[in-house]
């Protein structure tokens, strides 16, 4: 079966003052039809550059890319008819109303809101009460829903979403991912980027990206299975002191705060935990807990960054 999205040895660099920035450094991957694929990484990973290459807004220095089997350089016109793109920055017409924005984008693609109404219905009903309001006067959440409706209006076969949940609170993020799952059920391939590592587990497969490179690409469980060490979580009455005491111990390999716990790995393969507990008790820690824990995508990302 043909991949829905495909990148082959993509390189892209930018000149920033005197320095050359390698935004994408030999990126290759494929996204299958109907897949919900995540590009996970911090700012500067190259996520946006990759989106711009796939949506034919930018040309790579080297390498090839395809969307729906079409080449991004020679067949860009055909690709533009088939992709939906929601950039990270709100880019609809601020001085057109909700309704006018939708009909503008519908006209561009020679369609109407009604024609593919099933696809956008769930999202559109939430902004319909504001259809006479100028887009610039909408709240952030409503802008996002309008942008998504506009990106879907021509029933694209592939949807590119650049950091749709950045700066969005935990509740709205959950709701947005539910929307994505529903869109996926309608057969749309979705490529979504996010700096939030916990969202990786909501994707079918993810590419972990950092500084223009893919650190790993797999299913979320495939990635966490590859964590090379036994991971422990620890807590005590004084978490700050616990961090300092653990970091100062030469048996400790890594120690990172992780919500209510610190996540620890040890240098030795089979670190005997009683001696660590004893050391911490001697340093005055009370209510000490240390137990084995399952690594998350974020633990794996940090391990890959350190390699």
């Amino acid at each position, binding site marked *: 079966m043909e991949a829905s999205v495909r990148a082959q040895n993509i390189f892209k660099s930018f000149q920033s003052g005197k320095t050359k920035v390698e935004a994408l450094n030999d990126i290759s991957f494929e996204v299958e039809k109907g897949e919900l694929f995540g590009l996970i990484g911090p700012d500067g990973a190259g996520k946006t550059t990759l989106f711009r290459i796939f949506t034919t807004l930018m040309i790579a220095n080297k390498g090839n890319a395809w969307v729906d089997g079409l080449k991004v350089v020679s067949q860009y016109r055909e690709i533009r008819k088939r992709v939906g793109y929601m950039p990270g920055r709100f880019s609809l017409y601020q001085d057109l109303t909700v309704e006018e924005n939708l009909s503008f984008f519908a006209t561009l693609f020679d369609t109407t809101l009604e024609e593919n109404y099933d696809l956008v219905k769930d999202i559109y009903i939430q902004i319909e009460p504001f259809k006479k309001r100028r887009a610039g006067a909408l709240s*952030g*959440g409503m802008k996002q829903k309008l942008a998504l409706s506009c990106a879907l209006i021509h029933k694209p076969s592939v949807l590119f979403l650049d950091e749709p949940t*950045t700066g969005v609170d*935990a509740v709205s993020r959950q709701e947005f991912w539910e929307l994505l799952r529903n869109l996926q059920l309608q057969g749309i391939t979705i490529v979504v980027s996010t700096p939030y590592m916990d969202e990786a587990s909501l994707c079918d497969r993810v590419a972990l990206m950092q500084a223009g490179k893919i650190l790993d690409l797999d299913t979320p469980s495939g990635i966490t299975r590859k964590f090379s060490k036994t991971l422990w979580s620890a807590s005590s009455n004084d978490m700050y002191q616990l961090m300092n005491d653990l970091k100062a111990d030469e048996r400790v390999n890594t120690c990172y705060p992780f919500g209510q716990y610190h996540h620890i790995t040890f240098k030795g393969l089979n670190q005997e935990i009683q001696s660590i507990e004893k050391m911490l008790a001697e340093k005055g820690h009370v209510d000490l807990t240390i137990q084995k824990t399952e690594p998350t995508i974020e633990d794996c990302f940090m391990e890959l960054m350190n390699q």
Partner: protein
Amino acid sequence: MSMEAAISVSDLTKRFGDFTAVDGITFDVKKGEIFGFLGANGAGKTTAMRMLCGLSLPTSGQANVAGFDLYKEPEKIKKNIGYMSQKFSLYGDLTIRENNRFYGGIYGLTDQQIKEKTQFMLEHLHLEDQADTLVRALPLGWKQKLSFSVSMIHDPKIVFLDEPTGGVDPITRREFWSMIYEAAHSGTTVFVTTHYMDEAEYCDRVSIMVDGKIEAMDSPSALSKQYNAKGMEEVFVQLARKAIRSDN
């Protein structure tokens, strides 16, 4: 008003026309505390924070920040607080040294003080080699750490951090929190907003705003217990789902 309070807020309200953005919030932040100020988008966090920084006058209510009255002494408040956000960064076309000179100058530091502060900062951040590098050429993680240091150049009593770690890689995010701990340890009060719920766990206390009101306020562990939740993410979702106001 307790002597130990760095921030003391009573029934603080801000209305825009018939819209009540901040609806009678009351809380104290202790000196040296790391206070997490959470809420859904549109809950009123930014409006409240702007008032506390002396940038916007309340409609009603009282507040004392760093020992100064919000109505009578907003300029003194500004001198005694630091502010940093994900968006507000340093000047990209100035070097690290020049940014320090600029911000040190704004806060009225002497040349000698600026020199000492800059030296200390460069050593502390291991950026000695980069002192004359343009800030825009630094990686984002460094920019954020530097931006935090510069916001503290005048030894403020309180530092306000508005989503300081947005978009930053997971290791730098944790290094950033080490800096927050250090600052709090040396007596600076830290007032911080974040959308990362794991970071909420690092705070001494958090408040959660819903529709302009503070709906919950306690230590993360006490809140988890009270809401029978596994952690702050669950507490937050339980509370924020109740919001009528939708905005993000």
